[in-house]
């Protein structure tokens, strides 16, 4: 039985009935009067100088209303982090990857727009291109960005403690190299937007985005508009997973075209363009050296990482930091050295994707810990528990584990999967493996250096009727945040969930950094709670005065006012309410004072009751370079156990079962937390077994569709048993913290470790396609017989 009235329960989401009936409006479902259709001219070459662009034929095509290139767009540089603004809306001197944007057209229909694009004559001078880290770093390699010699986009060097000294004192040292592959988020709804510039110079951009706020700022900055005249509104979004967490060329082009034509302009990516745009998970090559004592105590980690970054920075400057910093926990680790390099090359840029830089690093390290456990003859679970941090511990790189239910998660999955009965007792070809992971509950600092609040919320009570309107610029992208915030508002106000109406995703409602780094439940949640409590206090203040009852003796619960003292006579207020509602047949007659009546009385006294809330984390983290990346007010954590069957003759892996425990602090909406856990597992499973973006030798994505880029289907997913652990995070609203990304961390290594358990072969490269597994088995056999 929960101590809460609304939160910490299973709630039916406020948005799903519309989604179940096809009523929910996504960007491509929208049209506007006079709307034009936009199309992009994108580079067919991976690296080339632009000699000339002739748009005359395109401009003269009947039905074409505007053609824009860098000449019209200007050359304001943008990107994700101000430290690495390295993109312009359109290429002006050269193109850097197949798909780089050169021009855009707006026309009366899509057919005309595409025809016009084909009529734009571009003369290229092809340049030698580089497609791998090795090629890009070679002496004399063509340089993508002049101010980044050697194509080194970013490099990180950090050391905590003294790693060499510590390694010298270790009993066992293990070194492995691990590689994943570039991934695609494969959200089912491609990016799309409609931009509408009106006669007063106000620009409204509707977009399938995770971050209306960052998009608003980027549009204003790049197109040189006053930011107060730019409004970004997100309709329902068909997921994003990080790729939609920054402004994209579609959005900027559509805005520019609308400014030029004075008409709304719609633009979409088709699925192939989604792949060619990229901005998803980097390919990482991790080399880790871990030193332990023979009793299993982890002493030191030396870590070298190369990121295949693609043509632009995107989130990459944060990624290269996260790849190192997120190994500071959840185990006690006094000595950690990290050297990371993000390398440019002529492929689409990589960015942040669910779990950001932490996923591949975690996979490498959790596999290595299993290898260490095996060599020391300690159980993998025991090794984890032995080294586990507890709530209140701080990592060597200053990440504060204000709550950490890691031990509870491990024990939950151990019991839930019947680990003890299975480990070491399964027949050949079947295996069981475990892993742990954790992630930030919101980045400690905004992407742009600022004192801004991370979220502001307004809760306005209707002047009549007792409904609470919640306005938040946060982004519901499928994770359930709208419902979570409605529940928090209801709980904090003391009213029923059905008495809340929430609107979100509109920059006019306030500031919200959006749905990325798993921040919204904790950060926006705090702001919602504060705003709701503010509204509640205003209502109770009026009641206190009207009824001469101290505020402390009043409470609101289930949309009813409760008094902690006897004999409070509120008939005066009730009569007043009835008189204002003559002819209505549902005026409260007997029973407790309702919130409906109380809020009406409060309005009559004060005018509109508006509560405001805001949230900004305290100063977090250490004083070293890059300290901000990895800091967070809280960390969600997770343990998973995977059970697999491997067909050794073909290399095919079947994941039979996943047991997953996640510490989310406190589950606001239990069903949504489970949903995020299950979705994370499916994404991790896909990355572990199938997913890889493939290129030809000219920089084109070969498998730019959902048939050849293979995400798990219903037939590939096992049953997932989810267990929620609640450690009550002191820095979270009602104790809540994240689930959306922490939950993906253990999946890949749990499967890696289970596969080893099944066939006795370690695989250090993803994806574990049947061919890769088969080859590894053959190699191991050869090794045994030679």
């Amino acid at each position, binding site marked *: 039985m929960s101590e809460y009235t609304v939160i910490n329960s299973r709630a039916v989401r406020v948005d799903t009935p519309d*989604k*179940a009936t096809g009523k929910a409006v*996504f960007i491509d479902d929208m049209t506007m009067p006079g709307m034009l259709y936009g199309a992009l001219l994108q580079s067919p070459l991976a690296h080339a100088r632009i000699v000339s662009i002739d748009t005359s034929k395109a401009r003269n095509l009947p039905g074409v209303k505007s053609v824009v290139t860098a000449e019209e767009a200007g050359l304001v540089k943008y990107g994700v982090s101000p430290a690495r603004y390295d993109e312009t809306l359109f290429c002006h001197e050269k193109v850097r990857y197949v798909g780089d944007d050169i021009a855009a057209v707006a026309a009366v229909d899509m057919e005309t727009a595409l025809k016009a694009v084909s009529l734009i004559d571009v003369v290229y001078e092809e340049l030698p291109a580089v497609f791998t880290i090795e090629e890009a770093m070679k002496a004399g390699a063509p340089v993508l960005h002049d101010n980044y010699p050697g194509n080194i986009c970013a490099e990180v060097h950090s050391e905590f403690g003294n790693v060499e000294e510590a390694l010298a004192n270790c009993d066992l040292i293990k070194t492995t190299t691990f590689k994943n592959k570039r991934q695609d988020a494969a959200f089912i*709804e491609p990016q799309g937007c409609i931009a509408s510039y009106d006669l007063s110079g106000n620009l409204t951009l509707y977009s399938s985005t995770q971050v209306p706020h960052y998009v608003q700022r980027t549009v204003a900055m790049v197109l040189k508009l006053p930011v107060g005249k730019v409004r970004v509104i997100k309709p329902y979004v068909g997921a994003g997973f990080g790729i939609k967490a920054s402004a994209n060329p579609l959005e900027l082009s559509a805005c520019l075209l609308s400014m030029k034509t004075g008409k709304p302009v719609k633009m979409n990516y088709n699925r192939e363009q989604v792949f060619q745009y990229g901005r998803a998970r980097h390919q990482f090559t991790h080399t880790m050296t871990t030193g332990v004592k023979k009793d299993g105590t982890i002493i030191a980690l030396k870590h070298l990482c190369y990121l295949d970054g693609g043509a632009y920075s995107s989130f990459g400057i944060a990624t290269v930091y996260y790849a190192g910093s997120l190994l500071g926990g959840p185990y006690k680790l006094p000595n950690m050295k990290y050297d990371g390099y993000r390398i440019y090359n002529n492929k689409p840029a990589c960015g942040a994707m669910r779990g950001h830089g932490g996923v591949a690093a975690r996979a490498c390290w959790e596999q290595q810990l299993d290898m260490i456990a095996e060599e020391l003859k300690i159980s993998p679970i025991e090794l984890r528990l032995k080294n586990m941090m507890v709530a209140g511990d701080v990592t060597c790189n200053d990440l504060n584990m204000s709550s950490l239910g890691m031990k509870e998660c491990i024990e939950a999955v151990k019991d839930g999967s019947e680990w003890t009965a299975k480990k070491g007792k399964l027949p050949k070809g079947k295996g069981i493996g475990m892993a742990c992971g954790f992630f930030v509950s919101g980045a400690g600092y905004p992407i742009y250096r600022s004192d801004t609040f991370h979220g502001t919320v307004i809760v306005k009570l209707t002047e009549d009727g007792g409904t609470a309107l919640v306005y938040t610029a946060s982004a519901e*992208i499928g994770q359930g945040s709208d419902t979570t915030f409605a529940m928090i508002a209801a709980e904090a106000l003391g009213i029923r969930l059905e008495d809340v109406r929430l609107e979100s995703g509109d920059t006019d409602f306030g500031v919200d950094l959006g749905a990325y780094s798993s921040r919204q439940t904790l950060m926006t949640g705090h702001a919602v709670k504060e705003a709701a409590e503010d509204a509640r206090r205003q209502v109770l203040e009026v009641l206190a005065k009207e009824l001469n009852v101290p505020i402390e003796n009043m409470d609101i619960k289930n949309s009813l006012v409760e008094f902690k003292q006897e004999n409070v006579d509120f008939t005066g207020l009730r009569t007043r309410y009835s008189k204002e509602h003559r002819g209505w047949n549902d005026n409260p007659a007997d029973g407790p004072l309702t919130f409906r009546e109380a809020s009406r009385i409060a309005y009559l006294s004060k005018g509109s009751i508006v509560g405001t809330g805001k949230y900004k984390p305290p100063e977090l983290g250490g004083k070293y370079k890059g300290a901000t990346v990895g800091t967070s007010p809280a960390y969600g954590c997770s343990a998973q156990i995977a059970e697999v069957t491997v067909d050794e003759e073909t290399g095919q892996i079947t994941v039979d079962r996943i047991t997953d425990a996640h510490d989310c602090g406190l589950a606001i909406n239990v*069903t949504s937390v489970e*949903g995020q856990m*299950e*979705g994370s597992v499916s994404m991790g499973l896909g990355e572990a077994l199938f997913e890889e973006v493939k290129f030809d030798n000219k920089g084109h994505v070969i498998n730019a569709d959902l048939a050849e880029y293979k995400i798990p289907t219903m037939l590939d997913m096992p049953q997932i048993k*989810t267990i929620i652990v609640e450690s009550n995070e002191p820095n979270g609203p009602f104790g809540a913290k994240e689930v959306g990304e922490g939950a993906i961390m253990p999946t890949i290594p749990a499967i890696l470790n289970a596969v080893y358990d099944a066939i006795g072969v370690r695989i250090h490269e993803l994806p574990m396609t049947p061919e890769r597994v088969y080859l590894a088995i053959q190699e191991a056999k050869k090794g045994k017989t030679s």
Partner: protein
Amino acid sequence: MKKLINLTINDQHYEVAVEPNQTLVDLLRYQLGLTGTKKGCEMGDCGSCTVILDGKAVNSCLVLALQADGRSIQTIEGLETGEGLHPVQEAFVEKGAIQCGFCSSGMILSAKNLLDQKSNPSETEIRRALAGNLCRCTGYQKIIEAVKSVPQAN
């Protein structure tokens, strides 16, 4: 040149002029305002454009509008009744089987089509029947629970 076709959508008769190279999904979404059917890939890989065509669940992005002449189609808009949600829709909502919602129209129609042909399907049968509908949000777990929970006549 456009051709006039007659078709029944959600028990309602339509007479529309269509181009030969117009797909059924584009006809539904842009000409008839039935935007519940979604476009995720346009290649028949994701299933978000699923409609029920003469009793069979198909990718409407692979069907020409002209091929639908004289035929009967059910889209997501046709599932609700005067009394409210269809039991499959109700189950999806109750069980939390919808997150971003973009695959949901197609998923619900495929599920409904399965249940129309087989009552009380096993988990394996559900997974097989819905294998053409990709979801990136849910891991399919609650979708299967939802389909299993739909009340069935015995």
